């Protein structure tokens, strides 16, 4: 009977939810009260918040207790996320590390690496940025040119090249990324996954102001940056496999949580209900789009539970990750477009007005179909790996 479908949370899960909810109610700063993540001041304020979470073991609930987590499962993590977004808690300054690097460390890291890096990551003492893209290798990750040459005698490597679009790169302490260790090898062969301390001599950071004027990401220049062997993750020359295996299997831990979208969709419905009073004709014209956006978020939530159940039963996530990326990025846009349509002429207000979050959210959502592999690339993956179409 335990194999029957059941979409209800268990009493234990509900207890966990209530514990999280009451902790968040007591500790979460007021919505949007922290300075922007993309300023030095805001970065530290967000770090402080994550340290507060860490102190009470809420920063990485799904990690083993030895690294600062609670050892809960993926479903509990999803519940925590629901509460986190419902509380309108701050954006996670640690997200690149916690959601992208950590699963890789769990799968490919040595025991020393885990002990060295995970607790510092969980407590936000060390914030990570990612060094994937290069100026001429955006969606074409296999086109990476930054290289690492052996520094014989020093038990390490000298890294040279340039990475770009590193979110939080302006302030992060550490960077993870791929470098070419075998210049002879073709494209995705000969790459190695490195962990690099940003304070190492030879690392230069140039912040890149983004469309809203804030400094969301940075270019990172490497010039003979020494990285010891202990900071190679998963073996020399295996970088592509390490990066892709994590992206693919996800281990459940780096699934993009639906709570962010269901929370925004719920605010969208509130905005619609409000507009029904103040601008009924405009609200009526937006009704279909509002409903669709809400449903898109709901579909994402259900698809995540569906996938999570599969992962918990030993299944893996393959090209579905690409379908997922397409869906969440389009959902995020659908939610924010519908909201801006409801706001009408007020959509352009930018600043401290009460509805500015929708515009900010829209600008952020616009990047969704671009980063983490453009949606064009993801559609290629879906067509080739789910439908077996030729590579063309």
């Amino acid at each position, binding site marked *: 009977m335990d194999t*029957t479908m059941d*979409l209800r949370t268990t009493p234990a899960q509900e207890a966990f939810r209530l514990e999280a909810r009451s902790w968040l109610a007591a500790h979460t700063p007021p919505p949007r009260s922290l300075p922007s993540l993309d300023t030095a001041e805001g970065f530290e304020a967000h770090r402080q918040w994550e340290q507060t979470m860490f102190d009470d073991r809420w920063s990485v609930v799904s990690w083993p207790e030895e690294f600062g987590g609670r050892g809960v499962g993926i479903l509990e993590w999803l519940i925590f996320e629901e509460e986190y977004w419902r509380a309108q808690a701050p954006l996670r300054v640690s997200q690149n590390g916690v959601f992208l690097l950590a699963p890789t460390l769990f799968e490919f890291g040595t025991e020393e690496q885990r002990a060295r890096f995970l607790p510092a990551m969980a407590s936000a003492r060390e914030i990570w940025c990612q060094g994937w893209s290069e100026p001429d290798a955006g969606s074409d990750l296999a086109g990476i040119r930054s290289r690492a040459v052996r520094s014989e005698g020093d038990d390490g490597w000298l890294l040279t090249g340039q990475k770009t679009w590193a979110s939080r790169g302006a302030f992060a302490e550490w960077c993870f990324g791929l470098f070419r260790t075998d210049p002879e090898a073709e494209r995705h062969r000969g790459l190695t996954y490195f962990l690099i301390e940003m304070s190492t001599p030879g690392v230069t950071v140039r912040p890149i102001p983004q469309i809203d004027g804030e400094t969301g990401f940075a270019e990172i220049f490497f010039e003979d940056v020494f990285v010891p062997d202990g900071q190679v993750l998963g073996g020399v020359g295996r970088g592509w496999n390490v990066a892709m295996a994590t992206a693919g299997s996800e281990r459940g831990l780096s699934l993009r949580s639906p709570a962010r979208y269901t929370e925004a969709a719920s605010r969208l419905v509130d905005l619609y209900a409000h507009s029904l009073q103040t601008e009924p004709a405009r609200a009526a014209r937006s009704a279909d789009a509002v*409903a669709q956006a809400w449903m898109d978020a709901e579909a994402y939530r*259900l698809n995540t539970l569906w996938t999570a159940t599969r992962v918990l039963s030993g299944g893996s996530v393959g090209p579905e990750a690409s*379908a997922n990326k397409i*869906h969440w990025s389009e959902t995020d846009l659908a939610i924010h477009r519908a909201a801006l349509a409801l706001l009408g002429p007020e959509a352009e207000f930018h600043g401290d007005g009460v509805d500015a979050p929708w515009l900010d959210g829209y600008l952020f959502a616009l990047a969704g179909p671009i980063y983490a592999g453009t949606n064009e690339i993801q559609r290629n993956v*879906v067509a080739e790996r789910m*439908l077996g*179409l030729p590579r*063309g």
Partner: protein
Amino acid sequence: MRFAFSDQQTEFRDAVRQVLAKECTTDHLRAAYEEPAARSPRWTTLAEMGVVGLTAPEDHGGLGLGMLDLVLLLEEAGRVALPEPLLETTAVVVPLLSELGGSGDPGGVGDPGGSGGVGGAWLDGIAAGDVAAAVGTISTDSPPIAGADGADLLVLFTTAEAGDGEAVPEVHLVDSASVTIRTVASLDPTRRLGIPHWTPKDDTRLASGATAREAIRRTADRAALSTGAELLGLTESMITMAAEYAKERNQFGKPIGGFQAVKHLLAGAQVKLEFARPVVYAAAWALDEGEPHASRSVSTAKAYASDAATEAARVALQVHGAIGYTWECDLHLFLKRAWALAEAWGSASEHRQRVLDGLVAGA
């Protein structure tokens, strides 16, 4: 919390898939186009497997199972564009008869709980594969009823006028032998559209008033959800056919499936299908469990499934090009069913409206 089917459910699905792959080929479909019928040897096979009586109580020869058990089988029915009325009979009429048996509706004829009652006899007949049903509303401007032409049993919803002039909903159980059916042509002849010529009588009334209203509401939910499930199967078939064709068809010196434009059309349809599926399954669970937001889940499911099917139909036809526009190519058998079902039991936009109205009302 566990969002997956049981092994038993997927095994039953696999068994039905295997049977339908043999007994409901596109040759069979073309034969059904020529002579549409409510029942067929295939229907008998499905009854013998327990599929037709799946939702009927065990003491009426059924398996006593619910929508969650049926939803995967409806998906299989959609995959092969099954022409028989599994949806109307097993997903809609049987649960309605089973439920109304206990309603104690005064003056009603249904007594499915006792084997002697009229409703009970119909249930026995359904589970045995001898009865195919259809369900619909009779009013001055109601559309024809799908499956009415050739059905053995009709469940008809009507409105009577009470003494105080108020409209009272009623559910009637009508032997098709006692009525004449005017047929209406559908683009898909296996839809067997018909308008029964019939006037309500006391001895056909199964329920009225609040009981009937609730039964009609639940019927609409079950029918919309089941239509969504069939659309999933149709969608997958259309995508698969188009992908296979795209691998074989060469233009400009290579398979058209290698062109990004074709890839992206199919990928877009596939993503919609991937996301429609859990939405439909969750709605089936919510209906069985009587969850408070079950109707909203159903509307989300139908809207998602309708849109996925409409998009897959568009894409599949575009990928096939002129070939897909011919009678020879099997694609049209699936397109026509998909177009009809996308509108049946509420279009996508109608269900979106229902979802939003419910959300705003806090329902």
